[in-house]
């Protein structure tokens, strides 16, 4: 592509606010929604284990997601500090 469009440069598009919040949750808890006591009670009443067998129950899955994101350097690309979960830009 650079042969055809030698002056083309990557454009950094700002991440929409709604997506920014989702990414923080995704990389903090591995999933888009947290679990709390109220939900755990509803799960019990539904005949389910209070904590689902997702990353909610397996914190090592969250560590793995963060490891993978760092390996791909996506945190740098989107300007998110995974240690503080704050955007740098």
């Amino acid at each position, binding site marked *: 592509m650079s042969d055809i469009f030698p002056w083309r440069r990557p454009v950094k598009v700002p991440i929409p606010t709604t997506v920014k919040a*989702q990414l923080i949750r995704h990389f903090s808890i591995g999933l888009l929604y947290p679990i709390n006591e109220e939900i755990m009670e509803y799960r019990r009443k539904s005949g389910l284990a209070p904590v689902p067998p997702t990353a909610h129950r397996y914190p090592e899955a969250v560590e*793995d*997601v963060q490891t993978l994101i760092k390996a791909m350097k996506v945190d740098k690309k989107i300007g998110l500090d995974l240690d503080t979960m704050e955007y740098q830009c």
Partner: protein
Amino acid sequence: MADIPNSSKDNATAVKSRYSFFLGCVMPVKMPWGESAIMHTLPELGVDLEYLKKGTCCPRAGVWKSVDERVWLTLASYNLLQAEGDGRDVLVSCNGCYVTLYEANQLLKENPEKLKQVNEYLAEAHSHYNASIRVRHLLEVLYEEVGLDRIRRESRKVPIRVAIHPGCHMRIFDDGRLVRYFSELTGILVDEVVPYEEEQMCCGLQANLADRHFATYERAKKKFDAIKALNVDALVIVCSGCYDQFERALQILKKEIGYEFGIPIIHLAELLALSRGIDPDDFGMRYLRTAPVDAIIAKWESDRR
């Protein structure tokens, strides 16, 4: 035109599959009734089903395909390898998760270079994916493996009228077979599926990321208005992403304009459970609803007496 599988009697000869159930982000925290109904009914119907453990966000292909394809493929593979390690295929109920995982899996099966790249990243987390498994939608398993004949034979129609919301991602295949499965499966579980003009309209989930007002008023509310006019007992879905959007839209509409939908949004598996005589309180049908399900339960109880 590709062969469209029929739900037939020869399902008994098919090799029995073993599945890991991928929950996704929404179902375990907002739809415990759907999760519980699936876990109650599928094993009864002969499906070897366990939870997929350590599941993370699928992730959202709609976001990551355009931002960075590596993230989509690597994080999807991380979920898929949990099932592969247990020697199981993946079963998904959410249309959005299904598209993400199914398409990633297909791409990695067809493209060894991309699979190699994904495994280089996965090695950082001491993981590896061989792309040796299948990703199957709940509807495919019910229709193609269990079969309409068995479901019909072992169930009793729930005496209610419903509308269905298939969702955009259910149209992943050109032949539209998932929509047909959904429609036929619902049809054998209730008295009547009432069609409406906006049935194929999007719930608004993707638009919600860019324009919440448009997603709420021009998509979700238009659907709700059309469904209210049908005077049905329930709106039936299978997609957790669509449910998430509907629930959010209803909260916004109530707060901003005092709008009440009043029609409960239920999962296909709940109908399956009721039709098999499973007590609604066994799968938590009454809790965490956008609208009460008491009228549905009353009709079901009355029919069961």
